[in-house]
């Protein structure tokens, strides 16, 4: 490698360098991490080419994680909304309660292959932390999870679960004490302990090869759903809706349909409590403050002020409360292949109520953003149309927030 061969620029990156999604993605990290990233890239490529790796992963996904997840026709929700037929992809039924374990398991197998005994992870809502703690218990690996103190407070149940599973949860007080700050701290740990530590990153974010690797481990969602919808309906859906924080469940739910251009792909970001910078996490919203930039290793849309300082974010759901978004979503956004919309805190809370009472399914607040979009969209679609919603996680972790926000406690709880 010599200077003359260094060709990938900053402001207009090329798509030919590793880990590029159009102009987005890439590797923007402190040099100390580069050897580890190159080692990971090579180990991942080798594992992908090894049938034994897939046999073990698929076996555990089936017998331990509980795949395949059902694709369920939500009859009462469909009737209530009076439009498109709604199918729910039930990632909430997986072991640990969310899609996150698809990726945590894959990366843990990779860590074991590479002989790394110490695992670190970041977590927002705690679902990736719980999934990582779970697979570390399964494989006997040391596990440290970084979590913003604000998120520890609002997702306390998941903190207890991680500790019960034997993980050490380290609170992060810097910044807004949420997901972004947890990733900063995990990266500081990694740069310090890089020689013996594997960083299980939980969303389709960060430096190459993470966005590709995380997406690959979640592709199973759309591989299954495609087979399932063809079995149910004999055709593909008209639209697929998924919530987008970093974007791991959405990219998994979308991926196999990207060439099927008749299938609309709709990502739902956190609209929070307002449109001003700091009040939401809608990176793709027009005039919302999201513009391309570099955060935590990758080039993608970043909520920031005009001086390039990363903005605070707000969402009732900790898992969507993040200033940037996976680079593949940035590409899908710019190309128009996927569209991105948002749901407010209030709309998400309402969606929790609607899904709980029509289908007996309590979704995570993150997934409720996707349900909220379905509630808006389905009535505008004909009854012959099919709308698929990825229910990325279950809502048990959010019962405290729901109880407060929806006034469910006490004898006078609203019916």
């Amino acid at each position, binding site marked *: 490698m010599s200077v003359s061969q260094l060709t990938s620029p900053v402001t207009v990156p090329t798509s030919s360098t590793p880990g590029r999604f159009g102009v987005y993605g890439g590797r923007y990290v402190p040099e100390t991490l580069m050897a580890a990233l190159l080692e990971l890239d090579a180990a991942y490529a080798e594992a992908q080419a090894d049938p034994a790796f897939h046999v073990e992963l698929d076996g555990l996904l089936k017998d331990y994680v509980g795949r395949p997840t059902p694709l369920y026709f939500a009859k009462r929700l469909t009737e209530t909304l009076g439009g498109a037929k709604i199918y729910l992809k039930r990632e909430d039924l997986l072991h640990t309660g969310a899609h996150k374990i698809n990726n945590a398991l894959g990366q843990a197998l990779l860590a074991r292959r590479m002989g790394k005994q110490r695992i670190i992870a970041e977590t927002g809502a705690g679902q990736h932390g719980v999934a990582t703690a779970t697979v570390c218990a399964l494989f006997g690996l040391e596990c440290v999870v970084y979590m913003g103190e604000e998120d520890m407070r609002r997702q306390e149940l998941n903190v207890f679960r991680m500790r019960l599973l034997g993980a050490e949860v380290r609170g992060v007080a810097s910044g807004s004490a949420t997901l972004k700050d947890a990733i900063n701290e995990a990266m500081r740990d990694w740069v310090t302990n890089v020689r013996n530590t594997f960083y299980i990153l939980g969303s389709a974010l960060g430096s190459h090869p993470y966005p590709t690797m995380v997406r690959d481990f979640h592709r199973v969602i759309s591989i299954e759903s495609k087979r399932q919808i063809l079995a149910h309906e004999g055709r593909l859906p008209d639209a697929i809706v998924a919530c987008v924080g970093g974007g791991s469940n959405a990219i998994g739910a979308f991926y196999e349909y990207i060439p099927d251009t008749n299938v609309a792909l709709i990502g739902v970001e956190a609209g929070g409590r307002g449109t001003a910078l700091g009040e939401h996490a809608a990176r793709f919203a027009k005039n919302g403050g999201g513009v391309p930039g570099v*955060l935590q290793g990758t080039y993608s849309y970043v909520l920031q002020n005009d001086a*390039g300082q990363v903005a605070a974010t707000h969402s009732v759901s900790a898992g969507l409360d993040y200033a940037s978004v996976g680079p593949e979503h940035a590409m899908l956004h710019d190309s128009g292949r996927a569209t991105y919309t948002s749901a407010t805190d209030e709309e998400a809370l309402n969606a929790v109520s609607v899904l709980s009472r029509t289908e007996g399914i309590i979704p995570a607040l993150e997934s409720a953003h996707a349900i909220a979009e379905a509630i808006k969209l389905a009535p505008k679609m004909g009854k012959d149309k099919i709308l698929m919603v990825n229910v990325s996680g279950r809502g048990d972790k959010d019962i405290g927030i729901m109880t407060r926000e929806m006034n469910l406690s006490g004898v006078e709880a609203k019916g």
Partner: protein
Amino acid sequence: MPIRFNKRPGLVIYLTAGDPDLATTREMALAAIDNGADVIELGVPFSDPLADGPVIQRASERAVARGTRLSDVLTICKELRAARPAAGIILFSYLNPVVRFGLPAFAKAAKEAGADGVLLTDMIVEEAGEYLQVMREHDLMPVFLAAPTSPDERLKAIAEASRGFVYAISRVGITGTQTELASDAQGLVERIKQFTTLPVALGFGVSTAAHVKAVGDFADAAVVGSAIVGLIEKTAAGEEAKAVGEFVAALRGGNAA
């Protein structure tokens, strides 16, 4: 002009611009230069300094909270250049503020402000194509970081891409003071020197006069950052420039700082 290290080891002093305020940053930089610093690294504060330890994180947070912008740092650079024509000045930043400013616009403004070079913490050589081109066009020196974990082929590319000096990171990890210099630092400097005649400056954990002296045994310059930034944090308002001047003089004098 080329970066010149007048004595061995040369001394590079890092300051987080805007902490405690821009005027004080300028005064502290002048005090550092007048007491023996060869090069000032003007740190552009960033909201998410993931390569930095707690001391520089706090300084960065304070400077961002005061509204310090890249354009302000360029202004300070211009004032320093006018006041001290011979000193080396490097703009030290995370990538995002520069991307937001616009890379070509930044390079043009940096040159006009009299900066000698630029160090971007999260820029690796493979991604640096346009960056290097723009640096060349504006006659600015790109300084890259080299890490103990970098294998020789990466050190070669880093050395070839760098101008002015190569910044060797003494140990794996984030910035911060240490009681002892890392034992693998010398090995790294020797590995870099296989590939370049550029000076090699060693930083991360270099915080005392004894460290600086020890660095002089195998490297061309020492970079002191967190120790200075931590000192500024503890110093009473109005006394910072004096404190920095004395600290730098002590680093230069070989007395225990």
